[in-house]
């Protein structure tokens, strides 16, 4: 069955979509009331501050190696909450469906969202569906709500000279996976799409003093570290040999003229931590599933900007990403 404009009418077809797909996949006591708005018990929020984040997701192809737009839309928003030290609790989701979309594909996406949300410990408590245009695609917006415990204080502006930079794993997997699919290049590269709660939980549980966290999404590591350096009024120095990139991804980047430092990831983060907690942090991160390849890649120093000691022994300035990071022609 395909999505038609009737599914966006608010009538019986919309109700069936809600019952058969979203209601079935996301079922929980708050959503199941099917009221106009979700009504939340305020008790989780009494000890701590409220964190809210929203993100919209557009990706071609909708299903890729290692994930799909549904998983992506949950991980992206959950990770944004985690990066401010929050415990994610609730998600809302808005779907823009194009006419011609296969209903089975929508169900697959919803199932994937539900599974990812369950693993991350969040409930989908409100949602909306609209049908627009013809093309068979879909976009998702998710908004996440979480709570930041009183003792946690993380901010991109909070870094100081002497702090260490921890990266949770290999760079470039998601970008290389999506680009391979779009360009029809056959390879085994999988997206790293995942929720990073296991790493943040492990770091906090180990008592690591975390100054700042960022998920390394669009713009890549280079852009994220420049933002942190600028916000904190410090410099960041990196060691190229410590920055992990999978061999297949490195080969693909070489072929396409792309730099892993500027490639998007969907399951990687950096944490800037008190330099004295280096050993504790790396031990804790490496015990987790999503942080098993975690490494310390550099330090915060006095000065400004981001620089890198290259494998060859030279130095390189690492700027923000300009433009879109397109494959080369030549």
């Amino acid at each position, binding site marked *: 069955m395909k999505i038609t404009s009737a599914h966006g009418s608010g009538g019986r077809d919309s109700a069936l979509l809600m019952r058969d797909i979203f209601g079935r996949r996301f079922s929980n006591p708050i959503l199941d009331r099917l009221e106009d708005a979700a009504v939340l018990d305020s008790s989780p929020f009494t000890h701590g501050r409220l964190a809210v984040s929203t993100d919209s997701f557009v990706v071609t192809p909708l299903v890729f190696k290692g994930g799909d737009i549904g998983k992506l839309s949950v991980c992206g928003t959950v990770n944004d909450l985690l990066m401010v030290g929050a415990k994610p609790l609730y998600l809302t989701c808005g779907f823009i469906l194009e006419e011609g979309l296969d209903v089975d594909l929508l169900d697959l996406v919803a199932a994937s969202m539900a599974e990812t949300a369950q693993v991350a410990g969040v409930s989908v408590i409100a949602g909306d569906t609209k049908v627009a245009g013809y093309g068979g695609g879909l976009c998702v917006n998710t908004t996440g709500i979480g709570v930041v415990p009183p003792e946690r204080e993380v901010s991109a502006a909070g870094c100081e000279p002497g702090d260490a930079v921890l990266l949770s794993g290999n760079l470039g997997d998601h970008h290389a996976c999506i*680009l391979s699919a*779009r*360009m*029809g290049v056959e390879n085994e590269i999988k997206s790293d799409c995942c929720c990073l709660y296991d790493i943040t939980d492990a770091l906090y549980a180990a008592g690591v003093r975390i100054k700042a966290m960022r998920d390394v999404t669009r713009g890549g590591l280079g852009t994220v570290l420049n933002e942190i350096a600028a916000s904190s009024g410090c410099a960041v120095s990196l060691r190229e040999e410590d920055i992990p990139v999978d061999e297949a991804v490195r080969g693909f980047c*070489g072929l396409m*003229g792309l*730099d892993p430092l500027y490639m998007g990831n969907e399951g990687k983060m950096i944490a800037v931590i008190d330099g004295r907690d280096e050993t504790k942090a790396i031990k804790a991160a490496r015990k987790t599933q999503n942080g098993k390849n975690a490494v310390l890649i550099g330090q915060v120093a006095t000065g400004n*900007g981001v620089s*890198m*000691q*290259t*494998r*060859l*022994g*030279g*130095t*390189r*300035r690492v*700027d923000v990403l*300009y*433009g*879109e*990071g*397109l*494959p*080369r*022609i*030549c």
Partner: protein
Amino acid sequence: MDIESAAVLLKSYDGPRISVMEVCGTHTAAIFNTGVRSLLSPKIRLISGPGCPVCVTPTTFIDRCIEIAKTENRVVMSFGDMLKVPGSRVSLAGARSEGGRVEMMYSPFEAVARAKRDPGTTFVLAAVGFETTVPAYALAIEEAAALGLENIRLVTALKSVLPALKWVSENGEADGFICPGHVSVITGADAYTQLAEKYDKPFVVAGFEGEHIVAAICAIIQALSGKRGVVRNLYPSAVSGEGNLKAQAVIDKYFERGSAFWRGLDAIPDSGFYLREEYARFDGGGRELGDDGAMPSGCLCGDVIAGRADPSECLAFGGACLPENPLGPCMVSAEGACGIWYRGAGSEGW
């Protein structure tokens, strides 16, 4: 020579001043990414060559593509890097915001697929590239012909690097060349022999790792103090003497050579690839696109492409000309020297 002794040689070099041209943008990017410049003696100058297909594409080509994009039932398909390059009035991206139908493609085969699905629209490829990309256009035309499609065209600004190297050897300042890596895979290392002998300059084929580039510069220094006009292939894992004969054959089947205008250089004989007479039904023009006159006012891209000036010598560099708001083509492309210099060294330049 191991990498340590090569590094010592480059840092302590105290012979005559030399200029080494890295012809292709991928090498320019690799030089910044690996920090090679920080390892060189001040007597070794690296200059960036004309090896960015986007940068050498004349404004007349962009203007022509914009004109097509604004014609009914025509869609122009272009690689992403071309979209922001200024034409005489606006870029292709600018034309799109004015209602022109311009779409970004990752591969020419996307246009074939679109043409098959939508027979009422003619898909016009803004065909830009060197020997590395030309075979993909040839194979796309082969597929279009096999499918019997009549709604696909190429506007060509496809170029061959070797005639441009001849021009640079005669008009530029380079004492030796790091040959374009990917182009060499297609042409083979032997293709440079004639140029090396005629102009008595070393041509070294190298890969893109820092070690490869260091080795190539050492090989050029060694050649300059001995037999100068030599070709050295330091990238034998990818580049053979004769090159990729299959790719050469497919280029030759669909394209013939003719004079082409290189932005910043000149009209160079035999440096353009144009569709052969047999495939005229796919030909959307290109031969007629000539000299577009001056660069934008205050832009030194012409001198940068020819290796006569470093990007940082341009007064607009990092001021009036920035990656997010480029004045000239070399600041736009990921392979353009100015953009790479700006990203790699900041507004002060190297």
